[in-house]
């Protein structure tokens, strides 16, 4: 009995005392199991790497609490509740799927806990559903594809057939491309949305694309579907007459080697490729390879920059939930992706987009950057929120 009281007393004092050296509790919400486990591993490795490399720049120290969302919105919601209410974290980071982000959005917003999104790209999260507590350090679906419309028209491509899986991200990626492509004078000669994760054989759709009279095909696929798609596209011999363009996840460095020679010559746009030529990226690639033995993917850099943003925020003296959320909205720094900043009107990242071609390199496939398209802030998309307070 006595020890219980003593323990309780000790616990109470620990709670009331200001955390010494400003230890910041960070809840990492990632799907360590399920289809996105490989993405989680890269995000986590990037996050840890940034804490190791830049942690000394701030006086704060960080304690990581990891929770597995299993890519299931109800599970993620329960884990987020646990982190917020029981572990009393100061800030959360992670979230791979947009469905999970949608599920935890109201909880995070209501509880006033800052959340640094390290992947989920649905446009609403920094649009109609935006929150001063949700800052996105990854990308938005529209952002990655929008610059490709005018760029392709500049390359002389005016007739395009589009393909994407039939779910929210697929539609947002293609819709944003379609919008800028047609505005720049291009024409969409055909458009198909394939049943998401139910399409094993893309043959029927490829035959339609071939018969459509398009000059090129623009697609969004990711993960296993991307591998199947790129290989089947090549096996039908379409690449020669009908070049393949798309959102850069199609040939992500995470799995492009599984696509093999079929991926050569595919031109896509993304916010990060490991071959971006700047000193920050060179240092990042070297450090990431030393830590994991892998080339960093866009997911790794998203984790890396999420932790960098947190460190930058704490450098302003922010330590609690409210001040961290406010500081995160004003973060800007030079990273492997180039100059990054947060647009305080939507809390989405502003970053350059890289057009790259997948080419054969020395140790497998590599990325040749064809163009760096300038960073532009996303449109508001219905986002209204309080301006940052100073």
């Amino acid at each position, binding site marked *: 009995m006595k020890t219980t009281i003593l323990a309780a007393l000790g616990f109470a004092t620990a709670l009331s005392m200001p955390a010494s050296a400003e230890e910041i509790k960070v809840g990492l919400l990632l799907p360590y199991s399920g*289809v996105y*486990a*490989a993405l989680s*591993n890269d995000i986590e490795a990037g996050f840890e790497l940034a804490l190791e490399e830049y942690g000394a720049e701030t006086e704060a120290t960080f304690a990581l609490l990891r929770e597995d969302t299993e890519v299931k919105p109800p599970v993620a919601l329960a884990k987020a509740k646990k982190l917020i209410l029981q572990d009393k974290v100061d800030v959360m980071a992670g979230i791979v799927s947009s469905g999970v982000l949608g599920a935890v959005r109201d909880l995070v917003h209501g509880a006033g806990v800052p959340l640094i999104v390290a992947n989920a790209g649905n446009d609403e999260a920094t649009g109609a559903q935006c929150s001063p507590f949700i800052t996105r350090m990854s990308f938005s679906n529209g952002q990655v594809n929008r610059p490709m419309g005018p760029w392709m028209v500049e390359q002389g491509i005016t007739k395009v057939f589009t393909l994407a899986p039939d779910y929210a991200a697929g539609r947002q990626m293609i819709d944003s491309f379609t919008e800028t492509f047609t505005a720049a004078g291009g024409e969409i000669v055909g458009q*198909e*949305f*394939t*049943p998401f*994760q*139910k399409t*094993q*054989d893309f*043959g*029927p*759709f490829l*035959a*339609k694309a071939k*018969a*459509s009279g398009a000059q090129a095909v623009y697609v969004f696929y990711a*993960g*296993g*579907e*991307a*591998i*199947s798609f790129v*290989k*089947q596209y090549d*096996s*039908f*011999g379409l690449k020669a007459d009908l070049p393949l363009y798309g959102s850069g996840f199609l040939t992500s460095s*995470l*799995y492009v080697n*599984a*696509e*093999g*020679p079929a991926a050569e010559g595919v031109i896509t746009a993304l916010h990060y490729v490991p071959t971006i030529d700047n000193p920050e990226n060179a240092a990042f690639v070297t450090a990431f390879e030393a830590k994991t033995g892998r080339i960093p993917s866009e997911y790794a850099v998203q984790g890396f920059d999420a932790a960098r943003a947190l460190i930058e925020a704490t450098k302003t003296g922010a330590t609690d939930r409210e001040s961290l959320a406010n500081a995160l909205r004003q973060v800007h720094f030079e990273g492997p992706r180039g100059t990054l900043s947060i647009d305080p009107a939507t809390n989405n990242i502003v970053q350059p987009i890289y057009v790259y071609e997948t080419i054969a390199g020395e140790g497998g496939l590599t990325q040749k950057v064809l163009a760096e398209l300038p960073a532009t802030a996303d449109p508001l998309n219905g986002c209204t929120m309080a301006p940052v307070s100073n």
Partner: protein
Amino acid sequence: MPLDPGFWALQALNALQLSMLLFLLSIGLTVIFGLMHFVNLAHGSLYALGAYVAAALATVGGYWTGFFLAPVAVAGMGILLYSGLIRRMRKSGPMAQVLVTFGLIFALLDLTRIIWGDIALAIEVPSLLAGRVSLFGIDYPVYRLFIIALGFAIFAALALVLKRTQIGAMIRAGVDNDAMAACLGINVERLFFIVFCVGCALAGLAGAVAAPLLSVTPDMGLQILIPTLIVIVIGGLGSLQGAIAGSLIFGFVQTFGAVLAPQLASVLIYALLAAVLVIRPMGLFPAKG
């Protein structure tokens, strides 16, 4: 809508190719069910295992090593499953069997993740089958033609074995009435073991064949399970004709659905499944009348 004959020939070949892949999977599942009334939901996982084994062996000894050894390896896994689990489950009723094999799906899924990691694997089409050939005025990938030919070859071989050999007659007798077959001196249990192993090997073969065409991911077994079950429900349980007819119907409805009515493509096959269940609850070609 393009209407030149080449386009439709191309789509017909696509449909055939998908059908044959599904046939390789569904034939094992349907005969196992028809013979022993055993529902093996883990059949899709064996297909995924076949793909992984083929991918792993392909990096060591080339595509054909994987092609020939993956079915053997998966049949080996089948023997393990049979002696460890399935033999004990024979008398425990369909509900327990469904639950155990459903659990096996997740166990095998995580096993492949632990061994081969989360990142998708892929293997290249062997050089012998790379490229395309001109056929009816269209260019078609050789590898896809190989899948079609392989499917028909397996179908012919199985039809021959089932119709013309003694073991085929014993299997047919077992499917028709296992108690009577046992009374006539047929060792139905051993027959089941052989059929189970052959079914597993065919699932492994399907995995090895699908690997260069699709990506090899841990959840590929789950993705193929529903189409396979649809095939055997439409075709009718336990029969070779049912498996081939169900596969062809699924392949053609799926492919031409995607071409003619893309918005309805994913619904069409389920609508057909519902229609078959209402009109012919036993399927089109059930083994038992």
